[in-house]
């Protein structure tokens, strides 16, 4: 598992290096239409450069999970990192003052907006927290298949 993660990480570092789209004004973006940005679209991706202000491994602010408050050149941005277990597995620790680069895009959840991270990079280390379809990596099932079977066990 560890080797696999490192291999994937290397690929993403290269991907980030090639990225030319600089996302610098996420917090100033026009309030997006909830329907248009409700699902992840890799073609809209950009990158966010900044300094960690605050890291929460388990925030109850929707979408629940790990959140990062990043100070960019033009203000602070709330970044959703998905499941902190993925960062832990990738041995990526985030602390205030760290310089980070985030690949992702702005999404909405209800009437609020957040920056959905796909890749988090700190120095030469990068960890993917979503795939290109926006799937929040492990775990993401809210109700297990077995429980769905239990629901169908009603006879």
């Amino acid at each position, binding site marked *: *598992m*560890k080797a696999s993660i490192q291999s*994937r990480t290397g690929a993403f570092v290269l991907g980030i290096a090639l990225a030319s789209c600089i996302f610098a004004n996420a917090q100033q973006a026009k309030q997006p*239409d*909830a*329907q*248009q*940005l*409700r*699902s*992840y*679209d890799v073609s809209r991706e950009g990158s966010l450069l900044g300094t960690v202000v605050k890291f929460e*491994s*388990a*925030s*109850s*602010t*929707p*979408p*629940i*999970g*790990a959140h990062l408050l990043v100070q960019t050149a033009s203000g602070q941005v709330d970044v*959703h990192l*998905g*499941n*902190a*277990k993925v960062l*832990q*597995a990738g041995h990526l620790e985030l602390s205030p003052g760290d310089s980070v680069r985030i690949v992702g895009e702005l*999404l909405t*959840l*209800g009437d*609020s907006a957040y920056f*959905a991270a796909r890749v988090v990079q700190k120095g030469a280390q990068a960890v*993917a927290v*979503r*795939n*290109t*379809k*926006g*799937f*929040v*990596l*492990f*775990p*993401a*099932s*809210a*109700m*297990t*298949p*077995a*429980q*769905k*079977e*239990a*629901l*169908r*066990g*009603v006879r």
Partner: protein
Amino acid sequence: MKRLLLIFTAGTALWTAACGGGNGIVNPPPPVGKYSTASLKGQYVFVTNGEVFSVGANNATPLARTGVFNADGQGNITAGVEDVNADGTITLALQISGGSYTVNADGRGALTLNITANGTTSSIDFGIVLTSTSDGLLIDETSNSNQASTGSGNFVLQTGGPFTVGSVAGPYIFDFAGLDGNQTNLCPCPESFVGQFDVNSAGTISTGFFDDNDDFLLSSGAVVGNFAQDNLNPSFPISTTGRGVAQIAGQDFVFYIVDPTRVRFISTNRGMLSGDAVAQSNTVPAQVSSISSSFAFIVAGSSGSGGVTRVGRFTSNGATVTNVLQDTNDAGRFIPTNSATTASISLDPATPGRGTFTFTDPNFTNAPSKYVFYLSSATQGVLQEQTSNNSGVVNVADGSITAQTGSPFSSTNIAGTYAFNWSGLSLQNGGSFAVQDEEDIVGQATVSSLSLSGAADIFQFQSAVPVFDLVASGSISIAGDGTSSTGSSSRDTMSVKLVKSNSTTINFVVYFVNPQVAFFANNQDSNRIVAGIMKAQQ
């Protein structure tokens, strides 16, 4: 091993950390009811789906189990077999060499299965609650020096044997969910695979149709395949275990026959899909004009923000759909849908029981809600969400749809003893730091005057330590069956308080299928994404 022990140690503070301060340990009163050890007797097909933390692992791994165990009615497990899929790593035909179980008067109990492989024996543990002597709900509560694992599931008495491949014959609908076998897109990723097939007595599937949502990508097509004996594992013949192998639309499975109307599957080619196929009756409506019923539904899965649940109901009079209510929990964001426009239902003339239910949710006018369903009868089926916006499919989610009967619901008919189970994700503080992780709970409660009192076990997996015998209490608020024109005011709700050394209260929206069964999902407090079932004990 060291890491596992560290987590075990750190996890002992789980419930305290999660629920605030407090001192005294509270235990439920002695159980009362009609069940005993003798209530669990016979061969039961079981399934769980959750995650496992094994010795030497850096992280927990998704885990599915399916198998059979034989209970002797005296607290002993005498035999059995299971198949395990851990995130695509498959272990076939593990012998259940023994074990033990207890059943309290209230139907709650504990089940231990001894697994023998390569000359060594280990054990896995479950918390159970009987819904009858023929079936029950369970959660994986394994927490020992070899592994910690959790997951929700059920067990159903196996009947109709001795079995042959021909025991499975006729039309069936299926719903397999879990993880795909894609290894190239940071996967395995979520997949929902639903459909219908017709198998003959020789085990050949020649007709059928499927709908697949694999990592937010929809596809559909014909189903061909076959059922066969597993000649590689002759120690567990289909005649006595109901176990065999199948190929469905190009995917490989092990199956267990519960009875000729229900077959249980677990995938064996890379991905981790599991689910049931249920015999399709000839009561399935052929014309949409034949549909005249209210339905409750529940789906769960993944969105781009994290976990998602949707629970709701609608009324169909032919193609006309009214009284749509839906409650969504999208990664902790709660979205109540109190009305719908352009709601309709249609049937696919080419595939018996297949149809589509669509409506426009005023909360998401540019992403019309769409579900494809496969009915096993006029009143029951499986459901896959296919809602899309301009960017594509928004969720990978599936579940159940069931006709709503027995209303009006009231304190008169919502009464008696109920088993309950919920599963999903919650924010947990066990281990080195707080994360979201799987939560499973199984319990039993007596409902009287719409008040609940009972007991439950919970496993919040970040701690790797289950908590047993919590005191469960709460209340149900009945506002109707959803057919009122008052929208949000016709929702039923439930509050459940769990107490051990400390307490927490979880609030749910509830959709009664009938007085014996309800679907529910939390609709407040964005630290959970869980959904579950209440089922009256028989």
